[in-house]
């Protein structure tokens, strides 16, 4: 049972909108990045001398590069529609965690230096100089946004606070104020190939171990190949999948699906990470550099298709940005979208009747599904808008007998972030993470009480890690969070291949 040094909120049947408590989370800030983590990303090592001028210049540069930033800083009318939508506000009561409150931290600086009203009448329009106090506020509160875009759903102008948080982090990085967690991780990707810093040989070992485990359990030789040139599919998955529960159970599931489909596939030690933290820090350059590894791996391994494993923001970058950042993909098989989500892949096979399931294998569980924010509001699966909601649920229904959705206000495009997205999945922000998880866990607790739900499936490495960590704070069990492909893995009925022990095994179709 986790011990907290702060008050863990009480779960309520429905998430209530709290009264505002100014400054409630002003103490929360992640560790600042050291010079050694800044350099490899192209950022100054520490706060530069003329930081104020350089920050304003950077803001001007970004205003010229991103229409979203320019339009969103101008357009807000302070209608208040977003004020009760952010899970961090609902969990912490701090008004600077209301999306508009967060945006205003940048808007007041924008108004002061870039608008007539703010230059002439700063007090009247709420414009302020970019002082060290304001910078400190930025560092604190722009690291209390998980860039989940829930606010953008309800804003009458579609103002997306994520765009503003990303720009703020980019400005801070450019003057030497980086966040340790994100920037250290991006450095690891450049140096070793993945967020967790797992070197190639360790991956090979892990995957061999998985093959043995799966063979012991099923009697079928399911392969987990890496760096195999000429494979049809390159699988790019978050490195957590190689490492920890419940992630690794998902990876086992992907392998079983590929086995059942009879397609050759491979992981890549060069692109052994689906995550792209370049997005979290708003750095196009770093996001592009991280994305290019996937192109490099696809070319080197001569694959025909690219499939992504379960990871929320990675799927956003993959689905929405990969073509932009690392395309064009004209050297891949044009019959398939680039990239595909593993859920799309599995779902297609289910539709074609090519997978056999024994749903009773999951009868020990009553499942609900957590829509990961980046998948829900920043991407799609399948041909039809909203496929990102229907396809994972269809897979659950195909593999489990007992499934219940959480409250409608908290799923699909109104889903709550897990509380750990956007580069906040670090122990130095644990209070924020625990409190930010409250709205999701209110809804989970509700279906646990009313429907007897025992497990929540997710398709995001960050969600899985976050829930594993924070569920115990609320008196729940850490293993109540499961990978979607863990359910597939449990239920799938595999037929043996030629090299299995069984004598009359048919060849894979």
């Amino acid at each position, binding site marked *: 049972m986790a011990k907290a040094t702060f008050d863990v909120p009480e779960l309520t049947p429905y998430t209530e909108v709290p009264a505002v408590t100014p400054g409630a989370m002003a103490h929360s800030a992640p560790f600042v990045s050291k010079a050694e983590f800044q350099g490899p990303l192209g950022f100054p090592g520490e706060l530069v001398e003329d930081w104020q001028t350089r920050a304003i210049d950077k803001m001007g540069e970004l205003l010229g590069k991103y229409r979203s930033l320019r339009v969103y800083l101008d357009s807000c*009318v302070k209608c*208040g529609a977003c004020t009760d939508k952010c899970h961090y506000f609902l969990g912490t009561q701090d*008004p600077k965690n209301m999306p508009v409150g967060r945006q205003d931290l940048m808007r007041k600086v924008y108004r002061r230096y870039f608008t007539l009203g703010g230059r002439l009448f700063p007090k009247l329009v709420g414009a302020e100089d970019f002082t060290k106090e304001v910078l400190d506020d930025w560092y604190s509160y722009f690291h209390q946004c998980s860039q989940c875009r829930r606010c953008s759903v309800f804003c009458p102008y*579609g103002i*997306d606070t994520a765009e503003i948080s990303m720009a703020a982090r980019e400005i801070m990085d450019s003057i030497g104020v980086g966040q340790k967690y994100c920037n250290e991780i991006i450095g690891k990707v450049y140096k070793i190939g993945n967020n967790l810093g797992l070197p190639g040989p360790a991956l090979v070992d892990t995957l061999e171990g998985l093959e043995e485990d799966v063979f012991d359990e099923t009697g079928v030789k399911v392969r987990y190949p890496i760096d195999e040139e000429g494979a049809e599919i390159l699988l790019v998955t978050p490195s957590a999948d190689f490492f920890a529960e419940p992630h690794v159970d998902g990876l086992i599931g992907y392998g079983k699906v590929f086995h059942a489909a009879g397609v050759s596939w491979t992981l890549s030690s060069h692109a052994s990470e689906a995550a792209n933290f370049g997005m979290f820090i708003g750095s196009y350059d770093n996001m592009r550099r991280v994305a290019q590894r996937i192109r490099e791996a696809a070319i080197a391994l001569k694959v025909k298709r690219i499939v992504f494993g379960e990871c929320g923001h990675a799927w956003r970058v993959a689905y929405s940005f990969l073509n*932009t950042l690392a395309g064009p993909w004209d050297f891949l098989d044009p019959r398939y979208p680039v990239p595909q989500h593993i859920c799309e892949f599995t779902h297609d096979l289910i539709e074609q009747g090519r997978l056999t399931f024994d749903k009773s294998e999951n009868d020990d569980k009553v499942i609900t599904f957590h829509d990961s924010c980046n998948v829900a509001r*920043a991407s799609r699966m399948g041909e039809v*808008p909203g496929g990102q909601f229907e396809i994972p649920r269809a897979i659950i229904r195909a593999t489990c007998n007992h499934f219940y959705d959480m409250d409608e206000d908290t799923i699909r495009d109104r889903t709550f972030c897990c509380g750990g997205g956007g580069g906040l999945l670090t122990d130095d922000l644990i209070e924020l993470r625990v409190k930010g998880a409250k709205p999701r866990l209110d809804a989970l607790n509700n279906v646990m009480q009313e429907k007897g739900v025992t497990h929540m499936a997710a398709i995001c490495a960050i969600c899985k890690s976050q829930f594993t960590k924070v569920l115990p704070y609320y008196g729940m069990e850490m293993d109540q969070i499961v990978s979607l492909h863990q359910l597939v893995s449990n239920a799938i009925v595999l037929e043996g291949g030629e090299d299995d022990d069984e004598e009359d095994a048919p060849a894979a179709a």
Partner: protein
Amino acid sequence: MALLTYSYAALFYVAALVLVSGLVVKIVRYARTPAPLKIPTTPAPTSRSGVALRMTREVVLFESLFRGNKWTWIFGWIFHFGLFLVTLRHLRYFIEPVWAPIALVQPFGIYGGIAMVIGLLGLWARRFLVDRVRYISSTSDHLMLALLVLIGTSGLLMKFVFHTDVVAIKRFFLGLYALDPQPLPADPLLLLHLLLVALLMIVFPYSKLLHAPGLFFSPTRNQVDDPRERRHLAPWARALEQQAPAASSDPRG
């Protein structure tokens, strides 16, 4: 009398110039700033016509706001729709002959004026009654509401209580087109009404009223969800590709 007329004529020339030039500058800047990444809030339409429909629902029905907050939606929609009817009604002062649809809409314009003020008062009440909205409201937010409420009530008062010479007003505005200002009636209520409207026109391009053009340029609402089918590349992002082609395209080298 002449001084008054010429002052107001000058005021409206300036106001119109500021409004039009200010908006043109802003809109051109919005249009020229690239949106380098595909960021529609999904589920999003997969075709241009779908986006047009989504945008129409946002502009006409305030769809997202409806999902976000019913009270703000009802007051906001009443205000904007009322303002729309009032604007149509007022067109009669600026065109000769008056088009048939504008003639037809005249009585509804009066209801629009009442609705507009009710909507504004509802929105203003939220700025005092809801602690979250109170927290985010700045002086300018209150002043903007005050300005609009005063414009609305002074207009309604002229309609229902202190009538003014509408024929002369029309002559004044038509005269402005020909750079030949005609005498403006010296009714205090009218002068207040017109002063505030001119003020509104002047602050429009420099205030949150930019939400009107802004919505049309919002990437989360106006982008098509088709990133896998079509490669989306901003000019400055394309320049990056040309800078360092070797490093990215040949990993085996």
